[in-house]
Each structure stands twice: as structure tokens, then as C-alpha cells.
């Protein structure tokens, strides 16, 4: 029996040695994931910026003009401003614009709710929902337009403003 006990002890020790050998050969590997997000950035402009006053009435109406300016370029308030002088009730004209996707992801666009329009609201100034369809790829340009209409209720010799938001959202 003593001999049998010795053999069992020897086997246990041997197995222990084998286990230590396997432990020595282990290794850890790592996968580091770094995600840089893209960004949405867009600017609005028009080919008419810098063209000076442009007649928007008819030939009888040379003093009714529109001047296009791009007032600010930033992530929160990039604005295409159209300044119209000598407008009158019933005047309606189309404002062409372009949206440049200066970000790194594709964009879809939609139109928000206009604000402003004068003291008499829709009776002073209105604008149609604009036209700007499709997705604008990163680095690409989209062309759109919207229509400003001067309402019957607008007073003479006054200033009125209306602002149309264009919401640019990361394309899915």
C-alpha cells in the first residue's frame, strides 16, 4: 500500500508540472477600436450673391430690386439674405439658392417652419415650401429655390422680414 501511495503522489506531482507548463505559454491579445465621427456641415449661398440689385418686378417696375448677401457662415447661423426694396402687394418672386455640403457625411434636407412675416403675418409676407430634393453627398452641392410673396395686407414704406430654416440632417 505504501508503494501504491507513492505512485499516486508521483502522478499528481507530474500532472502539476504539466499544468505549470501550459500556464507559461498563455498570451493576451487586444483589439483597440478608435471611432472618429464624421461631421455635418453645410453652407447656403446663391449664384446671385454679389450681383448687386436685381430687378424682380417687371419692366414697368425698375425700382423693385433684390440684393443677395451671405451674411454669416457658421454652424448655427449660416444665412442667405435677400433684401428687397420697393416691394408692393402681389409681388412674387423666386429665390434660387445652393447648399454646399462641406462636412464629411451625406446630407438630407428639409424645410422648417418660417418665422416672421410681418405684423400681419400671412397678409404681409409668405414663402412657399422650397424645392431641394435628394441627398447631398459629402463635398457635393444641392440646388433649390423658394418663392416669396408679398401679401395684400402689407403697409407701404415699411420693412418686414421672414426666415425659412433649412434643416440639414446626416443621411441615413
Amino acid at each position, binding site marked *: 500500500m505504501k508503494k501504491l501511495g507513492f505512485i499516486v503522489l508521483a502522478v499528481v506531482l507530474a500532472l502539476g508540472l504539466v499544468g505549470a507548463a501550459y500556464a507559461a505559454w498563455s498570451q493576451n491579445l487586444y483589439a483597440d477600436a478608435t471611432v472618429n465621427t464624421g461631421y*455635418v456641415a453645410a453652407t447656403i449661398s446663391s449664384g446671385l450673391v454679389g450681383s448687386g440689385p436685381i430687378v424682380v418686378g417687371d419692366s*414697368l417696375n425698375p425700382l423693385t430690386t433684390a440684393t443677395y448677401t451671405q451674411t454669416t457662415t457658421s454652424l*448655427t447661423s449660416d*444665412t442667405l439674405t435677400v433684401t428687397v426694396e420697393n416691394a408692393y402687394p402681389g409681388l412674387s418672386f423666386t429665390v434660387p439658392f445652393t447648399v454646399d455640403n462641406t462636412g464629411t457625411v451625406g446630407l438630407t434636407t428639409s424645410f422648417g417652419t418660417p418665422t416672421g412675416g410681418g405684423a400681419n403675418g400671412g397678409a404681409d409676407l409668405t414663402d412657399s415650401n422650397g424645392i431641394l430634393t435628394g441627398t447631398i453627398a459629402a463635398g457635393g452641392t444641392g440646388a433649390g429655390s423658394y418663392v416669396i410673396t408679398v401679401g395684400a395686407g*402689407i403697409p407701404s414704406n415699411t420693412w418686414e422680414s421672414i426666415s425659412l430654416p433649412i434643416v440639414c440632417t446626416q443621411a441615413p
Partner: protein
Amino acid sequence: MKKVGFIVLAVILALGLVGAAYAAFSQNLFAQANVQTGNVSVEWSSNTTAVTGNNAGVTAGGDSLSAAVVYGATNATDDTATITVSNAYPGAWVEITPALYNAGTIPVTVNIAAVSSYALYTGDLFINGGLPAAVNIAPGATVSMAPFYVEVAPSSQANGTTLYAQFTLNAVSP
């Protein structure tokens, strides 16, 4: 039942997490329109004429029939041209050709919108041939309307009387 409720709650929470994951980047652009309205301002032009005459067959010995145009104040509400005909008589007429200057910044359409005259009502005066059509006037331009005729009725007994007629012209934006 408690287990089912727990599963539903877990699903709702999971869907909420999925929704958060789909939040997209966005940016607003603005198309701003600043509109200044123009103004309507029409004045009488000195090209306005008033020419007198009489119908064929009317005899007016020593005829001193005449007409003169006097322009009143020029303002937005009460700009008046007064045409005075002197020594009129039955069958005499005055041919009035209104000429108007657009001193505003937008085009206007001008027409004779109203006529007020007791003499027209009594028949001492009448408009021979109707009133002129409306005219369009561009800013800075002067346009004459077609002439119209105001005549003393052949049957008028308004001897030594002032006969009065007022024509209201209305200028409107397009």
C-alpha cells in the same frame, strides 16, 4: 405574469437604446428675406390741359369762354387740380386731358374712380363721350389719360351760376 411584464419592460428599454443610437447629426441653414415696401405717390403734371369749345351751331357773340388749370398742394391725400371754366353757356364744353406724374417708387394704375356733381344730377352738366380708361404709370414717368368732355347741357337754365363737378382719381399699386 410578472415574468411577462419584466420582458416587456426590457424590450421597451432596449428599443429606447436603439432609438438613441439612431440620433443623427444636423445643422440648420436659413434663407432670410428682408422686404422693404415701396410707396404710391402720384401728382398732377403741368401737362394737364383744359381746352374749351362749343358745339357747332351754337352762337356766342363776343365769346369769352375760357378755362384755366390751377394746381393745389401736393400731398398724399389731397392733391387737387382745379379747372375753372369762365363764361360758359349751353353747348359750351371743356376738354380735360389729365396728365399725371408717378412720384412714387412702384408702378401705379390710375383711373377715374368717382364723379361727384349736383350739376350732373340736375342735368346742367353732362359728360359727353364717357370717361377715359385707366392708365399705367411707371415710377418717374408722366402719362396723359385720354381726354374727356364736360359740357353745359343745351337745356340748362343755370344762368350766372357756378356749376361744379369733382372727379376723383385713384392710383393703386399693381
